[in-house]
């Protein structure tokens, strides 16, 4: 995991050696940033853990039932069959059959009752983890848009609000309240390692409570078909210790870094006079459109395109020049920047930590 402020020297050297480095280890490392933990059966939070417990009960019960039924089936077929002369079943056999079936049905009812009880218990536990909304918990407004996640950390004071995209940072061990809304069609927010999913439905606001009990990167994905790029509407939930989280929030609250070099200054000019400002915000400049993701701290994010490609210079260039090649159908148009504009622009965007 790259630290937020690499040394300037390293950055220049990296830029100069970019081609060579890209060909070497960097792509693998960078692409590793595209995934996080995504196994529902390896829970990292209390909600996922309760669901996992329920799953284990269901799995045991169903496996036992399946084994019994399949065993009976195999036995029924394989066992020696008498060759009687009538089609009818003798009376004692008939009575035994009725007894066995009644017992099996009784067993069914018992197992299903057990499952129902486990379900209601798990539901109760999940409800218990939903805290009242006015308890001062960290609240994040998640707006689903085709095909990215618009994240806003809500705080009482307007200047404290943090806007980012496709990455949610949360402190470890604290419940976090997500308010789920959508700007267009139905989406579904799902981070399997932390909780089940909740739909984002136009005209209503849904709620989800998350908590990560250990630091890590948890991967999520939209789980309700929403059009062409439903497959690549992914997100990362990054759980960090409390102090790191506060540092991250404080950095995110700052406006965009002023360009430090001539190239970066030129890059900002390119940004401001091109079509970028039609959709993107960079706080501290005049770019303030909310149609696309907030780019104020673009370089602090690990990925681009809703966790489609790693956030490296090469991929950023590819994303700007040909986003339709990476995510055909998404709303970012291609751009034909000549090289003398592209490189300063990339320098500027890479400076937006």
């Amino acid at each position, binding site marked *: 995991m790259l630290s937020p402020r690499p040394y300037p020297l390293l950055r220049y050297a990296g830029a100069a050696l970019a081609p060579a480095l890209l060909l070497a280890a960097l792509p693998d490392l960078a692409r590793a940033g595209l995934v996080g933990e995504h196994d529902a059966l390896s829970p990292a939070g209390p909600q996922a853990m309760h669901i996992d417990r329920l799953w284990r009960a269901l799995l045991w019960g169903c496996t036992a039932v399946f084994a019994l039924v399949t065993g009976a089936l195999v036995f029924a077929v394989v066992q020696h069959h008498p060759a009687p002369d009538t089609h009818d079943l003798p009376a004692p056999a008939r009575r035994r059959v009725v007894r066995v079936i009644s017992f099996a049905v009784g067993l069914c009812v018992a197992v299903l009752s057990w499952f129902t009880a486990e379900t209601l218990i798990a539901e109760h536990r999940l409800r218990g983890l939903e805290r009242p909304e006015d308890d001062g918990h960290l609240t994040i407004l998640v707006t689903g848009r085709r095909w990215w996640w618009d994240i806003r950390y809500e705080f009482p004071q307007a200047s404290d609000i943090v806007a980012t995209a496709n990455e949610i940072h949360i402190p470890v061990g604290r419940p976090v309240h997500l308010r789920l809304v959508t700007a267009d069609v139905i989406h579904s927010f799902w981070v399997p390692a932390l909780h089940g999913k909740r739909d984002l439905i136009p005209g209503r606001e849904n709620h989800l409570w998350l908590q990560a009990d250990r630091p890590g990167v948890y991967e999520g994905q939209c789980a309700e078909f929403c059009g062409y790029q439903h497959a690549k509407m992914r997100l990362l939930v990054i759980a960090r210790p409390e102090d790191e989280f506060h540092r991250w929030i404080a950095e995110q609250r700052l406006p965009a870094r002023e360009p430090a070099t001539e190239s970066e200054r030129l890059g900002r000019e390119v940004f401001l006079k091109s079509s970028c400002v039609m959709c993107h915000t960079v706080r501290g400049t005049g770019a303030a459109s909310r149609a696309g993701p907030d780019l104020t701290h673009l370089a602090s994010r690990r990925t681009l395109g809703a966790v489609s490609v790693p956030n490296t210079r090469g991929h950023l260039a590819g994303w700007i020049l040909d986003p*339709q090649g990476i995510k055909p159908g998404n709303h970012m148009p291609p751009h034909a920047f000549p090289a003398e504009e592209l490189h300063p622009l990339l320098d500027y965007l890479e400076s937006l930590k």
Partner: protein
Amino acid sequence: MRAPETKRPRLGLLGGFVVALAFAFVLAACRQEERRFRETPSRAGAGPIAQGDLRPGGVTPGASAPNPYEGNAHAIAEGKRLFAWFNCNGCHFAGGGGIGPALMDLKWIYGSEPAQIFSSIVEGRPDGMPAFRERLDDQQVWQLVSYIQTLGGVPPPGKPVDRAHLPAPPGEGAKSRETAPGD
């Protein structure tokens, strides 16, 4: 024993008949449903800025470039989205006009041909229409034009506008569409 009925030829005949009928029915729909995602990028209006014929009381001569996305369902939907995203409705409202002129009526100060609407968006126009050259891609502008064409004020290509029943607005007689430059 009865031989199995040879139903395949009859099924094929009927099926072919129905398919041919349906084919004729839906042939026109082909182009309408294309989704063209990956177009060559080009900054709208890039290139040398042409001197227009814009002058008080005159109109830009009708350009002849057709709208490559005309009638395309996806483009119209995208145009509608962009219309809202880029705040066209800030001045044009939902087409009824307000601060800016209406886009639903038959009055087009700078022409209602697709290429003329394209120019108006790209070049900007006096009295408040910003120039979106450099800010929009060609494809996006054509998508907007496609959407605007569906708002009702733009007659389908080839169909003449019947203006006989419309009263000439006061003082706008010299700005009518039919006036050719140099008239």
